[in-house]
């Protein structure tokens, strides 16, 4: 099949260790109006290696948008967020926290560390897909990304 002409796809980095949540998110984004490519990192260390193009990630493209879970193995999402937003090369990439945590302390800390938005994961599958669709609609269709 010939490649579809048009603008370059939007690169999304999904940082998520839960296989089911990752699969649902990828499925919702595949059905999005705007062409996008999802790259999955399952730990915080892997996310930063992709962002910094370290090791086998030397050829990784720079994401236009990051969806970041907070509770991650091998470096917590809170630390990943702090590192991204303290890095002059990375800090302008919008980071949407997508997490199971409803804790007010997590919410305020994430915004103070310059998370661009904080979304809690609904447990219900249909609501989860709706939340991902809303993220897609706002960030891929309405927002001007850097």
């Amino acid at each position, binding site marked *: 099949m010939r490649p579809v002409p048009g603008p370059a796809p939007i690169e999304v980095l999904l940082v998520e260790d839960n296989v089911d949540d990752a699969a649902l998110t990828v499925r919702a984004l595949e059905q999005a109006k705007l062409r996008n490519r999802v790259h999955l990192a399952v730990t915080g260390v892997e996310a930063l290696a992709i962002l910094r193009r370290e090791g086998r990630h030397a050829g990784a493209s720079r994401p236009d948008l990051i969806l970041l879970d907070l509770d991650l193995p091998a470096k917590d999402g809170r630390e990943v967020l702090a590192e991204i937003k303290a890095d002059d090369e990375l*800090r*302008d990439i*919008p980071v949407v926290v997508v997490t199971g945590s*409803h804790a*007010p302390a997590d*919410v*305020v800390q*994430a*915004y*103070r560390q*310059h998370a*661009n*938005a*904080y*979304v*809690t994961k609904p447990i219900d599958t249909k609501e989860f897909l709706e*939340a991902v669709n*809303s*993220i897609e*609609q*706002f*960030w891929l*269709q*309405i*927002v*001007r*990304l*850097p």
Partner: protein
Amino acid sequence: MNTGGVPIEILLVEDNPGDARLTREALRDAKVRNNLHVAADGVEALAFLRRQGTHAAVPMPDLILLDLNLPKKDGREVLEEIKQDDRLRHIPVVILTTSQAERDIAESYRLRANAYVTKPVDLEQFLKVVQSIEHFWLEIVKLSRI
């Protein structure tokens, strides 16, 4: 979703009365209860946020919609002051402007804008954009209410 309870307080910083009126109309029909406060210039916006003078009794906004080209104090300066103020920086700031300049987009994200949205000239499109902001930030996002 926040349909009952305490309404969400929104500060709109906008010097164009027509755009302010349209934004108010679009938000009036929102699913989520909200109170819209309008500041017509950058100095008034910061006085509101710092509860100075006649603004001593105003509520702390949960969300700020900020135009860039403002009289007295520019939106870029207002953004920078908000994001450097420990009492204010957790409040999401959505830039809502006619500027499509790449330089404004890049600078706004560097100054920690939470999202950058351009105002469409077409009335129907403008309302659609405000509704998208409303849907994402009032229905999907978890705001930091402290």
